[in-house]
């Protein structure tokens, strides 16, 4: 079974994004970048499938400018067999990403595509579902457990009301939630080995997908700041403030 894992280069999750003074976007100059945390979980899951003998090949793919090859090397160091960089400088929406990925799915026919459930920059939470639609595959989003059994994937999903388990007919698209697994770190020898693993570069505009933006970004602002609060000295003072000042309890 072949597994395709799309990964995204994003701001490191420990870094607080700052808005540019001219309000055109978020300022990413000299900001630490990393693999989207949900994608790390996707890579880990694919590698575990390979270690278990369920998967035969793990292909990592990233769409973006040259810099995302750094994250592809990380995926290779973690255990992916092969990487594909779809190169573009365009600002992409999830629909564009899904359409480009659909082209790779057509070509490589992976039985499973594992994506993150959401990018921590756009917070879109769309790509996996869109890819499933475009390739007419079953989808298991927000997975916290996955078992491959015959031609099916049993996926337990984190939903608002608790946990839901679905049986997906393969080929399927699965998106990861935080509790699916705990990603490993790449070891130094594996980082060295990754340098020799194949990384194929494909120019996005050779794939025949129209990448014209459909959504315009008009403005990016700081969220409204909260008023500075006070430190209270006791429970008594707290309750009295909540009752008489904030008037949120009776």
């Amino acid at each position, binding site marked *: 079974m072949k597994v395709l894992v799309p990964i995204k280069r994003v701001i490191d999750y420990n870094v607080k994004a700052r*808005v540019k003074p001219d309000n055109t976007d978020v300022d990413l100059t000299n900001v630490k970048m990393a693999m989207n945390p949900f994608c790390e979980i996707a890579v880990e899951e694919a590698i575990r499938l390979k270690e278990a003998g369920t998967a035969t090949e793990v292909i990592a793919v990233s769409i973006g400018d040259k810099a995302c090859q750094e994250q592809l090397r990380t995926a290779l160091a973690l255990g992916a067999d092969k990487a594909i960089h779809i190169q573009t400088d365009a600002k992409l929406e999830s629909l564009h990403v899904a359409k480009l990925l659909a082209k790779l799915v057509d070509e490589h026919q992976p039985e499973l595509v594992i994506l993150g459930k959401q990018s921590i920059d756009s917070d879109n939470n769309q790509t996996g579902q869109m890819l499933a639609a475009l390739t007419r595959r079953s989808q298991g*989003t927000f997975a916290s457990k996955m078992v491959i059994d015959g031609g099916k994937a049993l996926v337990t999903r984190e939903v608002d009301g608790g946990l839901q388990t679905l049986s997906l007919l393969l080929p399927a698209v699965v998106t990861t939630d935080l509790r699916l697994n705990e990603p490993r770190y790449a070891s130094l020898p594996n980082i060295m080995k990754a340098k020799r693993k194949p990384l194929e570069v494909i120019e996005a505009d050779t794939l025949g997908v129209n990448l014209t933006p459909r959504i315009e970004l008009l403005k990016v*602002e700081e969220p409204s700041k909260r008023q500075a609060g006070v430190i209270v000295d006791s429970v008594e003072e707290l309750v009295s403030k909540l009752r008489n000042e904030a008037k949120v*309890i009776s």
Partner: protein
Amino acid sequence: MSVLVVAEHENGQLKAETAKVINAALKVAEGVDVLVAGYNVDDVVQSAANIAGVTKVRVVDNALFEYQLAENTADLIVEIAGGYTHILASASTTGKNTLPRVAALLDVSQISEVIDVIDSETFKRPIYAGNAIATVKSNEAKKVITVRASAFESQSEQSACEVEILSLALDNTLSSFVSVEQTESERPELNVAPVVISGGRGMQNGENFALLNGIADKLGAAIGASRAAVDAGFVPNDMQVGQTGKIVAPDLYIAVGISGAIQHLAGMKDSKVIVAINKDPDAPVFQVADYGLVADLFDVLPELESAL
């Protein structure tokens, strides 16, 4: 403008967030249609028909939609999408699961987690875990949108509007329901509760969450948690508040033993009043708290319960 709102429902009951999504939809058009797709949904239909601003409830009541799985629900929405300029759903796990599939089938980009409607094509939405707010304009002929319910008011009631029964039996040959583990709780739901009290890693274990019960009882509060508390197995996943859990904006949010990571703040910093109880005076949660209490939670929680 003609707007379709996909009703959010569970166990035969309409969820309160639907009225908030309708409130958002009414900033685009004067009346909206609501789609109820499910099985044995009579009560859901009735509740939806009574929400002010709803012109028509369109109903597909069929066992094929019992679990509202994305594959055939998306096909169903696409079937009836024709006449609409806007399709909205709650940014719940159900809405997030289904709507991007609808958008892709219609070949349009989706706008996720809208918190403000400027006009029929311009919307605000948080990005980067809420550290920035983007204003975006969609050039699509059809706008497919998920709405962050906590950012909108609820709608009042009306006398029941028209109900249209549709017979669309679309099968799902790709996926099937196996089981559900539902968390039963007598408490209000996190995303609509007026008061939320959440515990973090500082609670130390699941049993200690009982310390929050008495307080929640007295305040009519829902109980939430940080990711660390969920990951450690103290409480179930559906209690997680944050960037990747539930987004809440109650009148009062009380964070207990929670440090205040960006990802947690993303889920609660729009609460009207925030209280933080933490023994570390430097915990970042104090930067967003209106009232901070630097103390050991095991000392102050019993005190708080009896003071209320």
